[in-house]
């Protein structure tokens, strides 16, 4: 082995503490990058595999009722490959041992193995052709109620009670994300999807020889808008509500929004992380190399060329980069695998294909390596420019001046130690600035890590505590008459009841459109409070519509403008409605009107889609029983449950990611603090030993050394808060989607935690260095200059 090679191996070993800290910074950056990219790659790949294997449909439509003979004109639409004309019945379910109201959808089984939306069997078997009471159950629902092949449950179909037996548990591409229409969050206990044979379902739902739902798969190259247009014209006279593509299909829409958010998260967060890590790496490595001034001069004096020396230090840094990359890739792959599994479980994929593209790992490594090498080249070249004789000679005392603060008259209050601290900072402002920035960045990413938790709590507070005051939201299977209100008021324990009407519409402003529902609320209602952009309550106008802020922006309308609403049910009128105001909402894309105004606009069908209830908690179970007995009740949303399921959703999803980020941010913080303090010690060892010889205690020199880091740390923390806020704002903007917007909320405890992480890592590094101060070689300073 050549001597230089031995030297680098030994030096790497000697500086193993610092090297490890740097390697961990590299590893944290790489890990974040891999986790984010890999998770998203795995999810998209798994999704596309699942869609392909189950023949996920391309076009979806619902209608009132059409004879099965209408299937053939649909089949003849150019571009249509397969058609499945189905019966979809809204049902209320009775699960043994569960008293809350449960709603669901009962669907006919796919017609043939080639039909769209095949079921993926997870347990048991599909019902045999003659089993009239046999159903297969969606897995999330089955798991929530421990339903297994052989379990029994009952459904009220069209007002008729029917006993059912479960033969199998399935997954469907249509219900990957299982959510009751109109709900914000999934609730697997209270909403389920079941499939059964056509004959018994048609009989029970009054759909013999007819269908009310159709799904199509398209031939390659078919035009989606053309097919939708023709299908709409075929079904227009059968009460079709308007065909939609995958884009607008509930489950797929949610999934794509989730994936879009994840992708935004997976792009921005790691880029911030990796650039912060790269920046810190560059700073730390520059300092490390600068300390090697004398050995470098000696090598040059022996006749080693600048190139050989540069190469030598590149190898030293390569060793650190390799160590960091190995840790980063292994930890990244491991965590990404775990996270993908959590997601796949959350989305209910039957399998998970884990994808770690080599390009992802290589990109992360390349960015880190580049930063490390840039730091190395810069410092080595700077050091190499000094002639060896000069580098070996004791350095002339560096030039100091009084610091600005002292000239401003504070001087007489400062001890010599405090003056040393200030002048050291003032003499090398760039170096101090970089340390400051390094600590600030660490603090910023820890701060950023807390964003999601705070934002989620804020959203819940706003959505459920300040906006929604109803304990129960009861939705009806069909538009009910106004007598339903009186009936609701008369239920036992109901303290307050308010009407609700939801009309599916496509809102349009020029070429900008969005499919949502016009929600009609009582104008003077107290159970739903809408808040304006300054979070003050807004009254629902007598006429005109209130749009959620994100929807208004999406449609590019402002109060005073008007939007076109293409109603997607009944007589399908096209309405022109003035926009009266904008409300602040972090979830969904909603439009609100007065229920009376809405009913005036829909002259054919006056009525209610549901009611909001405030109830006496003591007799809430009795209300459930009452509601269940009413066939027109499609579903009941319980506020407390909604809050809980929102928490669970978030915990499963974003918060895990945020926690991982927090740990990695902490690692970076410790790595940076340790290195700054450690480098400060080696730079000033000589000076400190001199002071020790002069009789200063370890504590006194500790103050001088750690005071500088401490002062910089204290200044850096608020700067870190500001940077963290800016990062968070950027993330929040990039994550905004139709599902929800992340408010930029950072609570004091998050700031406190970020400060604590930084201060603790500063103290830990400080303690270590303080321990090292006890081992300063006092004798050496008498003889050696540096």
């Amino acid at each position: 082995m050549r001597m230089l090679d031995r030297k680098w191996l030994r030096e790497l070993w000697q500086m193993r503490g610092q090297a490890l800290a740097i390697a961990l910074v590299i590893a944290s950056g790489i890990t974040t990058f891999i986790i984010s990219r890999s998770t998203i790659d795995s999810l998209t790949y798994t999704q596309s595999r699942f869609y392909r294997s189950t023949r996920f449909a391309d076009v979806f439509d619902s209608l009132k009722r059409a004879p099965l003979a209408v299937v053939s004109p649909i089949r003849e639409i150019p571009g249509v490959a397969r058609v499945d004309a189905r019966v979809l019945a809204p049902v209320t379910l009775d699960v043994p041992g569960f008293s809350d109201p449960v709603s669901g959808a009962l669907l006919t089984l796919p017609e043939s193995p080639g039909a769209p939306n095949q079921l993926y069997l997870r347990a048991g078997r599909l019902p045999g052709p003659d089993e009239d009471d046999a159903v297969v159950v969606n897995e999330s629902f089955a798991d929530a109620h421990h339903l297994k092949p052989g379990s029994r449950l009952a459904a009220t179909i069209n007002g008729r009670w029917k006993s059912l037996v479960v033969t199998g548990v399935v997954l469907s591409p249509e219900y990957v994300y299982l959510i009751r229409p109109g709900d914000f969050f999934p609730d697997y206990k209270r909403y389920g999807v079941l499939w059964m044979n056509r004959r018994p379902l048609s009989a029970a739902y009054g759909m013999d020889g007819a269908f009310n739902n159709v799904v199509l798969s398209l031939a390659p190259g078919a035009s989606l808008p053309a097919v939708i247009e023709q299908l709409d014209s075929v079904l227009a006279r059968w009460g079709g509500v308007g065909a939609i593509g995958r884009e607008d299909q509930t489950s797929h829409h949610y999934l794509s929004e989730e994936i879009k958010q994840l992708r935004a998260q997976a792009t921005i967060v790691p880029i911030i992380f990796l650039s912060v890590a790269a920046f810190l790496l560059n700073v730390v490595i520059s300092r490390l190399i600068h300390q090697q001034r004398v050995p470098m001069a000696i090598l040059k004096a022996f006749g080693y060329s600048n190139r050989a020396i540069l190469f030598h230090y590149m190898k030293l840094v390569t060793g650190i980069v390799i160590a960091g990359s190995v840790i980063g890739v292994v930890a990244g792959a491991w965590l990404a695998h775990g996270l993908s599994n959590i997601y796949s479980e959350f989305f209910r994929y039957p399998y998970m294909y884990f994808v770690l593209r080599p390009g992802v790992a290589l990109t992360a490594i390349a960015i880190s390596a580049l930063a490390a090498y840039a730091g190395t080249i810069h410092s080595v070249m700077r050091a190499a420019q000094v002639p060896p004789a000069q580098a070996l000679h004791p350095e002339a005392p560096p030039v100091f001046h009084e610091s600005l603060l002292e000239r401003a008259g504070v001087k007489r209050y400062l001890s010599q130690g405090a003056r040393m601290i200030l002048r050291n900072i003032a003499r090398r402002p760039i170096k101090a600035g970089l340390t400051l920035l390094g600590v600030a960045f660490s603090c910023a990413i820890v701060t950023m890590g807390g964003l999601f938790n705070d934002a989620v709590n804020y959203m819940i507070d706003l959505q459920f505590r300040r906006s929604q005051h109803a304990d129960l939201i009861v939705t009806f299977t069909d538009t009910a008459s106004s007598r339903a209100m009186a009936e609701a008021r008369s239920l036992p324990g109901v303290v307050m009841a308010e009407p609700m009407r939801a009309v599916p519409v496509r809102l349009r402003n020029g070429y900008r459109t969005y499919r949502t529902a016009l929600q009609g609320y009582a104008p003077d209602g107290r159970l739903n409070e809408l808040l304006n952009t300054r979070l003050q309550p807004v009254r629902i106008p007598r006429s005109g519509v209130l749009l959620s802020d994100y929807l208004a922006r999406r449609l590019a309308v402002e109060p005073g403008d008007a939007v076109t609403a293409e109603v997607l049910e009944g007589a399908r009128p096209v309405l022109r409605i003035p926009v009266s105001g904008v409300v602040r909402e972090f979830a969904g894309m909603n439009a609100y009107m007065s229920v009376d105004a809405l009913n005036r606009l829909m002259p054919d069908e006056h009525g209610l889609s549901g009611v909001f209830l405030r109830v006496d908690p003591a007799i809430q179970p009795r209300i459930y029983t009452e509601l269940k007995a009413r066939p027109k009740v499609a579903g009941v949303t319980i506020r407390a449950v909604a809050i809980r399921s929102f928490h669970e959703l978030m915990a499963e999803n974003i918060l895990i990611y945020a926690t991982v980020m927090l740990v990695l941010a902490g690692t970076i913080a410790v790595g940076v603090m340790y290195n700054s303090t450690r480098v400060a010690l080696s730079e000033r060892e000589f000076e400190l030993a001199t002071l020790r010889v002069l009789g200063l205690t370890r504590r006194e020199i500790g103050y001088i050394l750690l005071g500088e880091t401490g002062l910089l740390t204290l200044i850096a923390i608020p700067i870190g808060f500001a940077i963290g806020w800016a990062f968070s704002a950027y993330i929040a903007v990039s994550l905004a989607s139709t599902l929800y917007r992340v408010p930029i909320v950072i609570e004091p405890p998050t700031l406190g935690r970020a400060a604590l992480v930084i201060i603790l890592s500063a103290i830990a590094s400080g303690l270590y260095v303080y321990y090292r101060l006890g081992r300063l070689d006092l004798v050496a300073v008498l003889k050696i200059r540096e």
Partner: protein
Amino acid sequence: MDASQAIPVPDETRRAVFRTRALTKTYVVGEIRIEALRGIDLDLYAGEFAVLLGASGSGKSTLLNILGGLDTPTGGTVHYADHVLSQANDRELTRFRREHVGFVFQFYNLIPSLTARENVAIVTEIASHPLTPEHALEVVGLGERLDHFPAQLSGGEQQRVAIARAIAKNPDVLLCDEPTGALDSKTGILVLEALERVNRELGTTTVVITHNVVIGEMADRVIHLSDGRIAGITSNPVRRPAHELRW
């Protein structure tokens, strides 16, 4: 070897500031044992100016380090007045240095971020009966350059600041390790004059390490060290003033 250079017998009648008996120091470096001191019996008296003379490796620096409380002996005893330095721990040695010892280094070791006055003040701030920094700098002839930073001072001036820093706490002993080693002879003599003045005016016991024989002429006693032992002690009946020295 003349009479005055005979193997020394400590004079029990004078008040000794330092007293070492059978002092040994052995370093173990890897597998090699270096016997730096092999049995030193030495008394240093109050107010005297002593020069420790010897070649490299003679043990003079090791002896100075042990006297100054920077190192502990392997065997034997060191007394400073009524303190037993040979058994002191780190905390006690720090206090000893803080209260009683002034150090002057070969390379000055000034704190570059502090002015001349502040370099002195950093020691006076922790001393119990210090001179003012201005007075200390006056003694070494630098009363005019109080507010200069080390980078603005010549080597000789820096060394004199170092001396001022060492004497400002009014130490009982002043230990100087090759104080002129990094200086040309003209500047070196200025520094020695400063030491001479401190010794005369403040009565500080002064020990100077050097391998420059000429410096011995300004001392009360010259202690010759060789191979870790005292090879002899020369007493000068008359001390030569520093400004007469030439090398």
